[in-house]
């Protein structure tokens, strides 16, 4: 067993070295360097080659079954693949809500037809997905959604509005919560899939404080959704949504991490200088960075522990809430420290020297981390109730 794993590690490393293009071993300079695939993708040099090479082995989704485009790897093999990729500095070949969110939900709740139709396209980066959950008047009370799906025999007729739809303007398909029963708050919601090119679908980007528009308002006006696109049972979409939210929280909690920390150290050394002992010249900034570094490294262990427990089926079902809460708060802290380290250089918003205000925009972007995918307050409520078993108010 151990020997097999060591063989696998050696082979994997050799394959990665042979197949990962040099451009894809450079650290990403900003969020914009990520590859999300899809019909509208514009690839940077090496990006498509890298994605296709990985997809050919099923390694964009290494732990999915081979039948659905996955690599069929065991948890131990998956971990080795990630470790070897990290060692070589390989970029993630494909960022995707299809991989991180819809995929696990389809694997659990989808029909065989749905799996065969959608999962391989996700694995190959052919179809880019977005998520239609939040609505303008629902906010943290997600189940208060109003977008309606009327039963028209062979299809649903969907009308309503979503908000905070990530990259809806660049997505090909949407997985979406709709109300199919107005008399039951939680058990009147269904989970459906449809093409964003269906007549009646339109999107409007939301300008954020960062100056970017990663989210949209999304409007549905008499959109016809075939009934075979219902995932799970009618009126039981809330179960699918909750399952999927857990995966979203995992993903968000994984942001930042080591490369971000190294960037912070380098920036602080560059902008504030060092004292005679090689320490940052600003002692209070250094103290805050030291405590952040402790938490960040401890959380890295926590992430490894959580993933191991998850794979072994030992994780508490509400643990993703803790991961999401802690990880996003850490990410916000890191970005506050970046701004404190960079001083007035990083306050510039448009200059070349500041790379168009990249750091400031990233800092502002992180403020959404503790809001999107369920606010920190919601996560704390969940931990208190579902893990600590504290009584309802």
């Amino acid at each position: 067993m151990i020997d097999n794993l060591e063989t696998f590690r050696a082979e994997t490393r050799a394959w990665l070295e042979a197949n990962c293009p040099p451009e894809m071993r450079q650290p990403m300079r900003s969020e914009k360097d990520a590859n999300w695939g899809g019909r509208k993708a514009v690839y940077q040099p090496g990006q498509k080659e890298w994605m296709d090479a990985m997809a050919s082995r099923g390694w964009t989704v290494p732990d999915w079954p081979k039948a659905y485009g996955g690599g069929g790897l065991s948890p131990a093999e998956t971990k080795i693949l990630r470790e070897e990729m990290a060692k070589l500095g390989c970029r993630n070949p494909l960022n995707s809500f299809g991989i991180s969110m819809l995929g696990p939900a389809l694997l659990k709740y989808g029909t065989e037809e749905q799996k065969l139709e959608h999962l391989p396209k996700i694995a190959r980066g052919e179809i880019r997905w977005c998520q239609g959950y939040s609505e303008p008047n629902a906010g943290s009370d997600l189940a208060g959604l109003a977008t309606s799906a009327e039963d028209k025999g062979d299809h649903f007729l969907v009308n309503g509005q979503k908000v905070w739809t990530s990259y809806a303007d660049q997505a090909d398909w949407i997985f979406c919560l709709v109300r199919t029963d107005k008399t039951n708050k939680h058990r009147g919601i269904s989970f459906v899939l449809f093409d964003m090119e269906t007549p009646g679908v339109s999107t409007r980007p939301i300008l954020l404080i960062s100056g970017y528009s990663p989210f949209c308002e999304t409007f549905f006006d008499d959109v016809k959704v075939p009934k075979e696109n219902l995932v799970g049972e009618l009126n039981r979409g809330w179960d699918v949504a909750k399952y999927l939210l857990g995966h979203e929280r995992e993903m968000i909690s994984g942001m930042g991490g080591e490369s971000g920390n190294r960037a912070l150290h380098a920036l602080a050394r560059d902008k504030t200088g060092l004292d005679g002992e090689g320490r940052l010249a600003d002692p209070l900034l250094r103290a805050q960075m030291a405590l952040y570094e402790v938490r960040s490294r401890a959380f890295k262990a926590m992430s490894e522990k959580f993933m191991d427990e998850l794979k072994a089926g030992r994780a508490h079902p509400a643990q993703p809430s803790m991961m999401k809460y802690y990880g996003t708060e850490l990410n916000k802290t890191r970005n506050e420290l970046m701004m404190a380290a960079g001083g007035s250089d990083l306050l510039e918003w448009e200059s070349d020297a500041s790379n168009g205000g990249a750091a400031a925009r990233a800092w502002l972007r992180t403020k959404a981390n503790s809001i999107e995918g369920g606010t920190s307050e919601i996560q704390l409520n969940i931990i208190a109730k579902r893990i600590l078993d504290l009584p309802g108010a």
Partner: protein
Amino acid sequence: MPLFLDDEQTMLRDTARDFVSEQMPVAHMRKLRDDKSADGFSRDHWKSFAEMGFTGILIPEGDGGLGLGHVEAGVVLEEIGRNLSPSPFLTTAVAAVEALRGSAQRERWFPGIIAGETVAALAIDEKPKHNGKVAMQARRAGNGYRLSGAKQFVTHGHVADLLIVAAHVEENADVTLFAVPAGTAGVTATPERLTDASIAARVQFDDVQLDGDAVIGGEDGGEAYARLLDAARIGASAEMLGVGGGAMDMTMSYLKDRKQFGVAIGSFQALQHRAAHLYSELEVARAAVLKAQQLLDTGSEEAAMAAAVAKAMTGLATTLAVQEGVQMHGGIGMTDEHDIGFYMKRGRVLAEMFGDTNFHADAVARMAGF
């Protein structure tokens, strides 16, 4: 003197509050930004500020001003902060006036400041982190000086009529301040739009020739530099306090109005406790700022310590206010359409100005002897 606003100061505050919130509400700043205003502020509004008498608050009566103090200037700054009003008030009517006060230069510059025609900027920082230190050298040349080097984070530097430049005159230990008029040969100001849509310049000095009378308050004038810094830091604290207070007020309104799960979110105890903690932090910061203003006005030796405490404390409190503000607003707080995000941006810029919380807390520790 009691540590609260007296009746006249309260009247001034009410006047300033009405005037600023009517003439320069957040929408005013938003419009300047959307129009990509090259000045970064409105000269018309600066003129009306002068007509209200605000620009002369710190100028002695003998020089045509109101002869009031930093408490009164702070009252105006807080309203500027609360409304995120782009204004050269802090650099011009507070810091520059404090530096020029009693100097020979005052006759040249005070009338324009009183009239709302003159804008001053402070060329102090040479590094991305303000550290109070000045490396720039002014070489003696004939009766005057030659100045070379670079400054950054010079708010309004691209439109200023007057640059107040901090440099060392050769062997002197202390910093000397120079009054450098706009258009002086060899001075190049490159405007940079900042995160909060304000504009600060990177200013290059290439062998700039200055007359002997460009010196403010004498060579080796560490005392003038110290007064300038105290005034700028305490003034920035007051403006930042307005930013924090404005963010809190906006957030408290939201907590009362916004419904989730069928009730106002302000009824959730966890948010109530955080709101109450935030209120406490801001109240404590307010006391620290007022104390520093009073000490500066009485010429106390404790003013430098009080200034450091005020800047550090308002940095803590206002940073909390804008963070809680955005978080408690939820998704809408992340949109450019809503004003709360502007408070976060402005708070960040002011936190950095004239030394951040870490810098000043370190200074407090040094002054306290540890």
